[in-house]
């Protein structure tokens, strides 16, 4: 028996030694550009260009200042007019530098091509602005502690393929924040009237502190946008990552959708928005 055990032990050692051999793996981090661009109906195009970061556990202000790409050539074309956007400082949107137009404006049914050229790289994307769908009604429902919940109702147009995105902000806030489940696809309610109980979403995924309700007396801005399919897919995949990345029942190891062609990720999206100002009561 001892002999047998000794032999087993030797076989084990040999196999263990073999199994410890490591193979070379390709470098994991791939540098890429990140594009976030939008063109609203009756407004100029805006484009933010940054690059991605390796996975450090902490990001400091120096790294954050460095992500922005300041000297790209950013062009938007509607097929007839082509405009090169100008880099400007904008305090509303991180990283506080973006490219914006001054001539070309978005219009319902328009198609817009974005080109970003930088250091020999070219990124391209196309989007369109769908029809405006108005909200039929906006109201509040009382909740405990002097709070109210926003409710909205709208009618989907049966003849069109529609995607929607809903935002809110307090009047004094700089930017709109998407609601908790902010994206809708009319595939499942085509031609019907849809009524939504709206919860405010967190400003971004760096915080989980958010109040789903408004206080009585708040002045609330509600923005309701029609978006194209590529925009819906991107925003829905971002929402999935934010809401479900920490859920073991669901998990997320999915790359976000993108409509950027070339060495980049992100979104170039047209919006047909209507903004409503309401007093919470």
């Amino acid at each position, binding site marked *: *028996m001892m002999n047998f055990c000794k032999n*087993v032990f030797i076989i*084990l050692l040999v196999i263990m030694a073999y*199994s410890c051999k490591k193979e070379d*793996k390709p470098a*994991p*981090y*791939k540098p*890429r550009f*990140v594009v*976030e661009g939008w063109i609203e109906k009756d407004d100029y195009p805006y484009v933010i260009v*940054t*690059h*991605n*970061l390796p*996975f*450090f*556990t*902490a*990001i*400091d*202000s120096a790294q*954050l*200042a460095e*992500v922005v790409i300041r000297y790209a050539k950013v062009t938007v074309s509607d097929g007839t007019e082509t405009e090169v956007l100008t880099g400007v400082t904008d305090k509303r949107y*991180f*990283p506080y530098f973006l490219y914006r137009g001054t001539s070309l404006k978005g219009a319902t049914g328009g198609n817009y091509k974005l080109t970003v050229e930088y250091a020999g790289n070219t990124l391209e994307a196309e989007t369109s602005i769908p029809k405006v769908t108005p909200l039929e009604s906006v109201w509040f429902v009382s909740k405990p502690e002097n709070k109210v919940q926003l*409710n909205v109702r709208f009618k989907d147009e049966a003849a069109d393929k529609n995607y929607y995105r809903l935002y809110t902000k307090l009047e004094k806030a700089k930017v709109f924040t998407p609601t908790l*489940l902010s994206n809708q696809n009319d595939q*499942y*309610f085509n031609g019907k009237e*849809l*009524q*939504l*109980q709206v*919860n405010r979403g967190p*400003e*971004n*995924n*760096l*915080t*989980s*502190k958010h109040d*789903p309700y408004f206080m009585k007396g708040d002045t609330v801005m509600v923005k309701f946008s029609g978006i194209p399919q590529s925009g819906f897919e991107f925003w829905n995949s*971002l929402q*999935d990552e*934010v*809401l479900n*990345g*920490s*859920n*073991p*029942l*669901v*998990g*997320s*190891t*999915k790359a976000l959708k993108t409509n950027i062609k070339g060495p980049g*990720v992100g*979104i170039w999206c047209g919006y047909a928005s209507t903004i409503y100002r309401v007093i919470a009561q």
Partner: protein
Amino acid sequence: MSKPFLVLLLLLLGFNGLAQKVLLEGIVLADSSRKAISGARVYSKSGQEQTLTDQNGYFKMLLDKGKTGLRISHMSYVELRPELLLRKDHHQTFYLKTNTQFLNEVQISAERGILKSNLNNYHLLKAGDLEKAPAFLGVHDLIKTIQTLPGIGNGGEGNAGLFVRGSSSGQNLVLFNHSVVYNPSHLLGFFSVFNSNAVEQVRFYKSGIPSEYGGRLSAVIDIKSNSEVADSLRLEAELSVLAASLNLKVPITKNWSFSTAMRKTFMNHSVWPIVNRLGNRDESSNRMSYDFYDLNFSSALSLTKKDRLFASLYMGGDDFGFDIRRFQINNGMDWQNSAASINWNRMVSNQVVLDNTLSYSGYRFKFGMQQEGFKAGVQSAIRDFTYQSAIQVYLEQHQLKAGINLSQHKFKPNTPFARNGLTDFDYGIPNTYFADEAALFLSDDYRFSERLSIYAGLRLTYYRHTGPYRITNKDGGISYFPRSKTLNDELFLEPSFTARYHLNKQTALKFAYSRNVQTIHLIPVTASNFPSDFWMPSISGVPPEKGNQYSFGIFKEWADAGYEGYIDLYARDAENAIEFSGGIMNLFDNLKIEDHIYLGKGKSYGAEFFLKKKKGKFTGYLSYTLSRSERTFAEINEGRAFPFKYDRTHDLSLVSDYRLSPRWNLSALFTLATGNAYTKPVSRYLIAGNVVNEYGAYNDSRMPLYHRLDLSAGYQFNTGKYKSSLSLSVYNVYNKKNPMFNYYMARGSLSSGRVSVQEKSIALLPILPAINYKVVFK
């Protein structure tokens, strides 16, 4: 030495010394019920020859001519010592009396030799074996015990799957009294759906799958209840911090009895409040709730001396809740397994046994999610009917088995539903698939000589996906196929071969090969093998999975010293392995599953080591597996091979039991395994104020090493009419946090220029002590 030469040498060695021997064939039956006794040990008088009876009570043995004696023993029966006068080959039936002392005798000796079961490619587990390892929270469990054997990985904490030799949990065939059980686990893998009080024995095959089993690539877990007619009333009640159970056996007539085993947990009133309170420290905390029940009914009827009927019914259900509080999201899952079968076993003659079974399996699953007025979910359902008929014929050196198997499946893998406020979302017609299978099988277990025996079997299966079936075309139109229409079919052969060669009485070599085809697939959806992984049949675009397995091992007993052990090497390959390209959220769409799966190849190999001590006060076993399992998919990692999620480089289990006194016993279980492979972020980017992860190569990172120690102590009270026992157990003694899931949470603010990313782990179970009280009336 070259391989062919070695084989030849082994064959030559095999043909020796058959002179002056006669063949004795026998059937061992219970005296009262006439039920076949399997696993009875038959010894020749000299002790030179010994064997075990098979499931039909059959055995055969070569004995010297002339007057001889036998010893037939089984733990539940009084030992029989018949005297025989053998002039020529002989056939006889032996009857054993039930051992009424048995119930008072808790010691269940390690009886079955490794040379019998493992050479037939299975591990045999009996009810008594389950009690030798510490129970999780006081409950002994079958699947947990199987996980301690070599080559069988557990999926890590909170994972219900059994991962046999580097394959997925959906590649195991789990049969409970002949019915397929699709989801054999109650949630989180802590309990299987099999109440150990309703289990008599389990055969666990991981290589050389016999031809009577079909439909899965990897392993077979064949679980049987006691089908014997009970001869006396017996009532057992059990209570632990988790669950209460009640078991009853009632004889109605001398030939007819029924039994029930019922179990219900009340963890929502015991465990979860504590776990939730402990975990409630920060904003990212979650809330869990979970309970289950199961019911077993069975009835045994001895129609004549030769005909036995056994009917069995299983029903079980689970209800799980998981709330992510920071988003006010409530997740819920509930599912039910059901299985029913009726089996007629007829002993046509002493050499021929006919076995017929009609069975039903059902499985339902529902996953729901609610965020205030928004509700969404997905349901899944399976229904099977199966008929199997097999005939077993015992000839001198042959044991033949042949039969047919007919089954019909109905699957509704993903039926979504959603409601937002007052509006129900319209998902159109749910995916429904009908499929059926017809199989013929034939096998022979041929004993060439005392040293060499060979098993060869073949299974021929015709599979088809039939109507009624509706499919939405690319242009939005719907095509309908009626019931008579075959959409997709396939005919395939599955050979199985095992050669056993005894080097001497206590040492044997075994080579096994089998090729298997799997026509229904378990599509993995969640990050951690929750029951939401759903089943669907092969259809056009989702072909059957096919695999080959080779294994070669040496098996040894040191009967006097009371040890046994083996080393088994294996290699397997598989084609059409499946990975799902979406998450569970995609199931909320009424998607065509075939458009969202990747097909690839799998490959695994490894070495298994097992050493068991069977005698003495101190018993136990050590099992260790060194292995690799990898997959190659054109669409994943640019076609490079990546480790299977449950690849276990090392997997070690140590199970021990110490009998301190006739009343006290102590047991321990230590387990250690390489962590799961998972996909980790390698970079990130900023968009719309969010920090977004970019994930690296698929399954390129590892969870930390999993290890855990469980201890338990049991005490037997013995007070006349009824018996009772008390057990104390501690799960995860040194409170190791074994994470089941990692995620990454960014915190800080972009405007202030400080952002940190924390790696967060979800580990479910801290140290958990438990107490369990059991009482038996008879």
